[in-house]
Each structure stands twice: as C-alpha cells, then as structure tokens.
C-alpha cells in the first residue's frame, strides 16, 4: 500500500559556531550552550507545510538555499527540525525513526557511497542492513546493477567511479530495500543528458509500482515533465503548490516579456498595461517598488534609465511591434526584449521576483 508524506509548519534554524580556527581549540565544542561566542543563526525552513499523496511523484522546486535539502533531511531523519512535525505515512519521523527508515530510500545530493566496498557489495550490505535474506539480496543486487548498466563494474571499488556512475549506484542502493517512499535530492545534477533520460525512465517505472517519490530540483524541465505535483519553495516556505499545469496557469497570461527601455516613464508603463492581451506590468526598478500603482502617483516623472519591465501577457511575439511603436511614440527607446513561453521558470519569477538561477 502506497505511503504518503506530510509536514506541518517545519522550522529549522541552523546555529553554526565560528570556524574552528577562530575558536582557538581543535576539539569541537561539545556543548554550544556554555559558549559565549555569538552564534550565526541561519534559518533554513520557515514554516514549511507539505502534503504528498500516496503514490505521487512530487517535486520541490526552488533555487539553491531555498530549503529543499533541509526538508529532505528532516523527512529522512538526518536533520532535526527546530519546531514542527513530519510524517511518513502514519509514522512521526522524529518519534519512530527506525520504522520510518524502513519505509524510505534516500538518494543524497552528494554521493555518500561506501568507499571501502565494491559496487556490488554496497548493494548487498545495504540489503543486509535492512534484514533482506542472503539469496534475495544477492539476486536483487545483480538485477539493479543490470538495470543501472553497472554490471561490468560490479566488482570494482567505487572510488574510481565517475560522478554519473556514483549517482546511478546511489539510486540503485536506495531502491535495494524496495522503499515505499523514495527521496531524490537533485538527482540529475551533473548527469549527462543520456543518463538523465535513463534516470527519468527509472523514476517513472518505480512510480508505476505504486511508490511515492519526492524529488528536489532546480531544473524546470525535470519538474515539469516528471512531477505530478510541485511545490515551489523559497526562503524556507512553500510559495505555490499544485500540478505543473495549474501552476503555469496561475501566471497571468502565461507569456513573459522582459523589456528594457532607454528612457522608461510611468506613462509608458500605463500605456503598456492598456495593450490588448497584457495582464500585468511590473517595473523592475526598486524605486517604483514593482507596482504600477506607486508609479501612477508620480506620473510623467522619469522612473529610471535602463530599468526593466516585466510584462505578463496572453501572447508573446505578436505584442512586440505594438510595444516597439508605443515605445517610439513615448520617446522610450526599446533596447532589449526577451520573450519566454509559459513555464515554471516564469512562475518562479512571478512569485519571487527572482530567477531560479539567481
């Protein structure tokens, strides 16, 4: 029976001490409470709540440092939340750790393979940790090596493996005990396109066996093509959640035109807004705080030179001639145009004002 995943109002604040060299001692301070040194408080999760249905492929999408890996860490017993709760199925992650660990498989962002073992031994011992009988775990290890195209390297130490091979083996290991919920933290980072396609196939296949999959990514294409539902995460909380289609539909218009003018005026913004098909106009310069309303207050005033404007619209390229002539007539020379079609990237930009790659 498929198992769901849920988190409620997760918060996590990392308090990291100053670097060891600065602290003077070489033995890590056993107890932070006694230390008088000021701690840097780094909030990673800020009230993150998620609900992932049993048997779903769910994606956490967000830029680096958004809190995706910390969320995975909390759900996989590796990061203790400062407050809030997390469940795998009916099991509270922080009260029934051993039980939860049985239900989950984890592919970490950075390979953590056992360097003292061969590829095959890694799988076989992993099976043994999970109490799988000798014959079954040996058969399963061989089948997984085959599936991940690692059979020929099965008896080699993993030290010399390439990044892609290590990643494949990490995934094979996570599947070894046939977990109900599979976590993949940035699974395709650093993979070549071919391996990425193999990975996607394998994830879909595992999902068809009724498993729940949670993956984090900052690749739009991956989230878009693989995930049934997504949560967009930024600054430690969910800023939007839904199916990729729903999320994309939530962007006004869908098309995003990023424009730059030589001489941008508030009047120009108003005239842009009036064009047929334009849903929303956002000036990017901080001086007009991104809203048309505040710009209206100081109409006719030059807002900023070379500032940008984001136009959300129902159509893309066909708007350009109108914008160009409009710009010409109001004396603002159009200096740069970038059109993007409805995408999660646009969605992220719409919600955060930042690009995913920032």
């Amino acid at each position, binding site marked *: 029976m498929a198992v769901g995943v849920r988190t409620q109002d997760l918060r996590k604040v990392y308090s990291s001490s100053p670097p060891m060299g600065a602290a003077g001692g070489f033995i890590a301070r056993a107890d932070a409470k006694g230390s008088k040194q000021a701690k840097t408080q780094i909030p990673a999760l800020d009230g993150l709540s998620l609900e992932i249905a049993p048997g779903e492929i769910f994606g956490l999408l967000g830029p680096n440092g958004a809190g995706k890996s910390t969320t995975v860490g909390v759900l996989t017993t*590796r990061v203790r939340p400062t407050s809030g709760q997390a469940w795998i199925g009916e099991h509270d992650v922080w009260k029934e750790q051993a039980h939860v*660990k049985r239900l989950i498989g984890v592919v970490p962002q950075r390979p*953590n*393979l056992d360097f*003292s073992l061969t590829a095959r031994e890694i799988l076989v011992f992993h099976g*043994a*940790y*999970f109490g799988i009988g000798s014959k079954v775990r040996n058969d399963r290890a061989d089948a997984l090596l085959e599936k991940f195209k690692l059979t020929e390297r099965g008896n080699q130490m993993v030290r010399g493996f390439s990044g892609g091979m290590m990643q494949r083996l990490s995934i094979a290991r996570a599947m070894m005990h046939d977990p109900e919920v599979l976590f993949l933290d940035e699974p395709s980072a650093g993979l070549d396109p071919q391996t990425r396609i193999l990975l996607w196939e394998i994830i879909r296949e595992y999902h068809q066996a009724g498993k729940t999959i949670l993956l984090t990514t900052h690749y739009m294409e991956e989230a878009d093509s693989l995930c049934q539902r997504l949560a967009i995460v930024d600054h430690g909380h969910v800023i939007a959640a839904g199916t990729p289609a729903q999320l994309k539909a939530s962007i006004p218009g869908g098309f995003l035109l990023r424009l730059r003018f030589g001489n941008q005026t508030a009047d120009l913004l108003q005239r842009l807004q009036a064009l047929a098909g334009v849903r929303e106009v956002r000036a990017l310069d901080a001086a007009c705080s991104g809203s048309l309303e505040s710009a209206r207050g100081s109409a006719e005033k030059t807002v900023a030179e070379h500032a940008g404007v984001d136009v959300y619209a129902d159509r893309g390229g066909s708007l350009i001639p109108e914008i160009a002539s409009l710009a010409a007539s109001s004396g603002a020379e159009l200096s740069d145009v970038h059109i993007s079609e409805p995408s999660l990237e646009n969605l992220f930009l719409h919600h955060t004002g930042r690009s995913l790659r920032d």
Partner: protein
Amino acid sequence: MNWKAFFAMLARDAHVARRNAIQLLMQTFLQPLLFVFIFGKVMVGSGYMPAAYKSLLLPGIIAISMTFTGIWAVAMPLIAEFQWTREIEDRLLAPISVGWIAIEKVIAGMLQALVAGLVVIPLAWLVLRPGVEISIGTPLTFAVIIVLIAGFSSCGGLALGCSINQQHIGLMFSMVMTPMIFFGCTYYPWSALKTFPILQKIVLINPLVYASEGMRATLVPQFPHLPTTAVILALLFFDVLLLVLGLRQFEKKSVT
C-alpha cells in the same frame, strides 16, 4: 533492537578489515615490534638496560598496542566517514537507532584491539626471548582487564572521531597521543614516578596508566604495580565516561 542490521554492520566492518588486513597488521604491529627490538633487544643486549627490563617492557607494549589499535580503528574511519566521504550516511539510514550504530563501531573497535593485544603478546615474546618472565596467573582478571582496555580505547576513538576535524588529525597525534604514551607508564612502572610526586598524581587522569599497570599486575606481578581492584575500577570509570561522551558526540554528528 534490530539485531539483523547490527550484525550486518559488524559483518561489513569485518569484511573491510579483512580486505585491509595487511595494512592493518603493519599499522598495528610494526611500531611495537621495533620498540621491543630496540629497548628489549638492543639496549638490554648491549648492557645499557638490565635484563629484567624486558619483562617490565612487555606489558606496556601490549597496553599501547591495544589502546592505539582501538582508538585508531574507530576514530580514523569516523573522521573520514563523517567529514569527507560521508559514507556513514548509508548506515545512519538503516532501520536501527543511531546510538546502536555507534555501539557497533565500538564493538568492532574492541574486537580489533583485542586481536592486536593477543597477537602482540606472542610476537613480542618471540623477539624478546630468552629471559622474559611472563605468566598469566589469574586468567579471569587478565580477561576482564584486556576487555576493559579494549573498551576505553574504542570508546575513546568514538569520542575523538566525532569531535575532531579532519584537518586536526596531526594535532590529535601530537597533543593527545604522544603525551598519553609518554605519561602512560608504558615504559616504566607508575611507582617509578615517585620522585616526581605531582606528576605522579597528574598522570592518573590518563587511562593508559591503568592499562599498563593492569597488564603488569596480571602478566608480571613480580614488578611493582597499582592494585588490581583500583585498576579495574579506574578502567571501568573511563569505559563508561568515554562511552557516554562518545555516544553524545556521535548523535550530535549524525543529526544536524
């Protein structure tokens, strides 16, 4: 308690130890054997040391070999696994509570320390012979003491391995290991420090003192040594202290 997972991890450590057997043997036995050869053979043979020194030296060498094998066997892999390869994560995700993973490491380290001790005895005896007068008059006491020595070294390895930064391994050797050896009553009995009364008191915080004195008490009781009961109690104290400390550090390292 998930014994299957526990024994699977122990089997993994045994497997890795078997694979690195030659390296491990060199690491464990080369230094004590050279020591035995120089101090027991060369110095005694040339008359700079009395012949009785051979018998006095042997228990100390056993204590050092066991202690450092235990510390090394647990601390070094942990330092690498937590900070560099992160390979311990595989076991942290096994369906067993985190504390038991640390216990497994301790047991594996203890077994290695015991093997080291039991192999060094005949090896050193072979090098030193003739003229070594060792006897195991009280086998049970001897067994208790070597298990306790294996315990404190292994637990100490756990505490150190979870507290020390990778870049400070060298410092660990010069700041912890070296003073521990030289103030560990390994090459001389504790009573020899009576001319340095303050030092004689201070060295009592060094668990290696009890290891060496305990070995002396059971293998060469003809030499002066601390009372066996005191040795056992002190070793027990260090076992528990370092285990508690080590478990705490391990849990701190394994969950952020």
